[in-house]
């Protein structure tokens, strides 16, 4: 998504990214970024919280209009009820070592099959 924002901006279309993965977005470097520090999946605000979602969108509009330079990050005043959320995403439980390795093998096999299908599709074309 950050790459798309950069491309639009480089071609004269101002952008603002709303997202919850601060390190990834800032590592790439985007013109304007509204950061919502809540679990990945609801960048605009917690589900069904129209009041918070509206405040985040208004912040994005303000950022779009007022930013004077690139790499502008604005932290939205949003929080998540359950403080344990920060530990969950992508956790690796040592007790699940074998299950994760098996999951990885299945993913690689599916990716190989997809590549083979794509190659045969482009050959037919």
């Amino acid at each position, binding site marked *: 998504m950050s790459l798309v924002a950069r491309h639009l901006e480089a071609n004269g279309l101002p952008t603002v990214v709303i997202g919850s993965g601060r390190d990834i977005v800032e590592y790439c470097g985007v013109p304007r970024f509204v950061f919502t520090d809540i679990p990945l999946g609801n960048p605009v605000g917690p589900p069904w919280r129209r009041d918070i979602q509206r405040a985040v969108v208004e912040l994005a509009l303000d950022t779009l209009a007022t930013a004077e330079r690139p790499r502008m990050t604005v932290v939205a005043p949003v929080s998540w009820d359950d*403080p344990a959320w*920060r530990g969950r995403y992508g956790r*690796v439980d040592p007790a699940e070592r074998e299950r994760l390795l098996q999951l990885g093998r299945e993913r690689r096999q599916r990716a190989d099959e997809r590549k083979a299908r794509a190659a045969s599709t482009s050959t037919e074309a």
Partner: protein
Amino acid sequence: MTTIDVDRPVPYMERTRRYYRALGYEQDYVWATFADVPFTRLAKPLGATRIGLVTTASPLDRSNHDASGTRHVWSGSVAPPPQSLFTDNLAWDKDSTHTRDRESFLPIETMTALAREGRLGGLASHFHGVPTEYSHRKTLAEDAPQVLARLRDDGADAAILCAL
């Protein structure tokens, strides 16, 4: 036992690296990074600016996937907005939250209301879906130019990109 800092943003790049190593991948994913960042000022006041929305979600019928399973840029109408979108294939925190409220990741109704109130010049008539790709090359060479062309077709002056 890992200590979780309650205030610091989650280090997603480090978490992702550790997770994929646990899955048996030998090479770490290489995230894009740039020294320079492009910047364009808004050409008109916000109240006269037409804005397009961009998402990483897919349509429920997954018609943005071709026969090989590759995803492509797609567009949907904002009026009426889609009830829900397909997000199961994306990397988000499925243990902590859900994506049943489409407004929580693609705020069409909120933007429509703000446009009606005059906060922006208007919401572009389509939103656009962009695939999250392993390949930076596909995003830069194919998908990003497609999104730009579609935004321009809709008369959008600016874009809000909501990344799940």
